[in-house]
């Protein structure tokens, strides 16, 4: 970050002085331009705006959401078939009997079966080809997979952040026995081979929870949200605890306590606003990790159950066509790479924007 530009920023604390100087040096009364202190969020936005890479990440994420939640249904209407529709006899290459390749046109009757005279037959277009011998549309599955992956990643992040901030804030603020208990709990969770536990828990809890969708999520999404969120809270908890430990010794907390504010009020209106920055930054970085984790678990066959599409289970069926259609492993892999990269870049950019001293 170029220092000259940063120096030109009028910082909140100096705004009083700056306006006084402006009044004294103004030649005539009434010509003075109004000097206004920039608010905290305005400064953050100004710093963030200069970070082109992070802006790129942010724009990509917005596009990804649009594609996943608006683009996927549109594409489904336009193509005339759904992501879970199977074309068992028709979406195959006539010579090799392998799934059709990218940009394939073919004709099929009802149920995806071959055309028979007398029954209406429709032309279908598979933009990225078929996903397997069952003949599902890889392109649509990729778009709908984005929905699943984003739901899991964001849901698990919200849950783990909520648990982490709650436990971290309580431990840091109250100290003593409560802090000791929560800190030991954090250490126990940290000492776990977390991935082994997630794998094991997903498999034992999964069959019971998979049908629980609240009507809006795909099958198995809430299982993964629950399982990942339950084991991933320790990292935010440690960060928030450390922050609260230093904040609670500050004068403004003392002042609030002196005028008789309750603990809950101090935490909510004096401490939490200072934690917004780390919460946003780490949420972005943890979402990136959770996209990877969902893909990994679904790859192992314990995440999102078929036929619901997710990037992980697209990746897991790809090795079946390893030698003949290697592109099937490219698409979901690229999707995961780009989504994770975007959230990582956004998170790094936000961190630098919130805390310019830490940037190098």
């Amino acid at each position: 970050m170029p220092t000259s530009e940063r120096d030109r920023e009028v910082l909140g604390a100096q705004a009083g002085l700056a306006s006084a100087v402006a009044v004294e040096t103004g030649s005539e009364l009434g010509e003075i331009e109004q000097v206004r202190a920039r608010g905290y969020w305005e400064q953050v936005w100004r710093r963030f705006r200069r970070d082109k890479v992070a802006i790129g990440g942010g724009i990509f994420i917005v596009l990804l959401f649009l594609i996943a939640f608006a683009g996927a249904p549109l594409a489904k209407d336009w193509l005339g078939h759904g992501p879970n529709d199977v074309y068992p006899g028709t979406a195959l290459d006539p010579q090799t009997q392998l799934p059709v390749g990218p940009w394939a046109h073919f004709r099929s009757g009802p149920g995806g079966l071959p055309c028979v005279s007398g029954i209406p037959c429709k032309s279908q277009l598979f933009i990225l080809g078929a996903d397997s011998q069952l003949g599902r549309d890889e392109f649509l599955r990729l778009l709908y997979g984005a929905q699943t992956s984003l739901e899991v990643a964001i849901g698990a992040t919200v849950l783990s952040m909520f648990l982490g901030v709650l436990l971290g804030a309580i431990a840091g603020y109250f100290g003593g026995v409560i802090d000791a208990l929560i800190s030991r709990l954090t250490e126990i969770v940290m000492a776990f081979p977390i991935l082994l536990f997630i794998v094991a828990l997903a498999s034992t809890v999964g069959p019971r929870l998979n049908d629980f969708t609240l009507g809006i999520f795909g099958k198995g999404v809430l299982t993964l949200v629950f399982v990942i969120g339950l084991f991933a809270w320790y990292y935010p908890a440690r960060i928030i605890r450390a922050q609260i430990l230093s904040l609670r010794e500050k004068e403004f907390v003392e002042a609030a306590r002196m005028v008789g504010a309750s603990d809950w009020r101090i935490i909510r209106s004096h401490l939490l606003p200072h934690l917004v920055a780390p919460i946003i930054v780490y949420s972005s970085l943890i979402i990136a990790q959770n996209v990877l984790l969902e893909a990994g678990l679904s790859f192992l066959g314990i995440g999102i159950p078929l036929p619901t599409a997710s990037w992980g289970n697209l990746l897991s069926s790809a090795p079946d066509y390893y030698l003949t259609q290697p592109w099937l492993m490219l698409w979901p892999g690229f999707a995961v790479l780009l989504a994770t990269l975007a959230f990582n870049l956004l998170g790094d950019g936000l961190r630098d924007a919130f805390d310019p001293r830490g940037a190098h």
Partner: protein
Amino acid sequence: MIRYLIRRLLWAVVLFVAITIITYIIFFMIPTDPARKACGQLVTPACVKSARHYLGLDRPVYIQYYKFLERLVVHQSLGRSFANRQNINSIIGRAAPITASLVFGGAVTWLLLAIPIGILSALRPRTLLDRSAMVFVLVGISAHPVWIGLIFSWFFGYKLGITPIAGYCEAFSPPQGAACGGVVQWFYHMILPWITFAILFAALYVRMIRANVMETLNEDYVRTARAKGAPESRVMFKHVLRNAMLPVVTMLGMDIALGLGGAVFTESVYSLHGLGQTLVQSLSGDDLPTTQGIVVFGTLAIIVFNLIVDLLYAFIDPRIRLT
């Protein structure tokens, strides 16, 4: 020093108890009916009844847990598999060396990659080398290990044919009828898995080492050493690197533990029949004792490993020895 040792040992025991309780809950209380699973394909009321008795499910929960712990501590036995009645200790005995060679070889690989790259990019910030290192970091933490594995094994194994596509070779005493064996073959088969496994951690370590070295370079004692006229090599090795590498040692212990879980992905891509692959198989076969055995064993390994790292750390860092 003695107090520190005792504290660490006691903590390891607490962890062990906590972890066995949680695994017990996960494996024998959450699943609908372990006895039914124990019978597998032959679910008859008689079988379920005897299995329930055999597994002790007709007794109170705390007795069940106590029996489990007793078997584990006194007999060092993890039980028998539901799938083929094999002793789980011997299943783990076959799988553990594979995972160990993946994880430790991977750790060596990621250190060999990360230490030079991290130090060089800290010494020459904003150069082409530093910028490419940062791109490597971003891609390394964003690409899925499974995907990297699939692409590598397709490209290097299938397209170029310079490495095996998948599979494992025993380094010492390969079993009768094995396709390959010996240290050279073992190394040859492990190259791709090691690199695949190492990329994520290498990326994290490049970033960490770079930040540590840059921070240490600004310390007062480094300036003092330079002012005294110490040669640059002495400043680097004695003052900068020694201090910059201390946190790396702690992280290494934790990350090898983390990697034990992450090995699942690499193993399943390269069909290495290590702990992760066995775990996944036992999951799909509803083989609860094997799953549980692997989780307990993995956790124990991590506790012991962390204990060793803590003790090593006390020898490296004199500040701990004094307290």
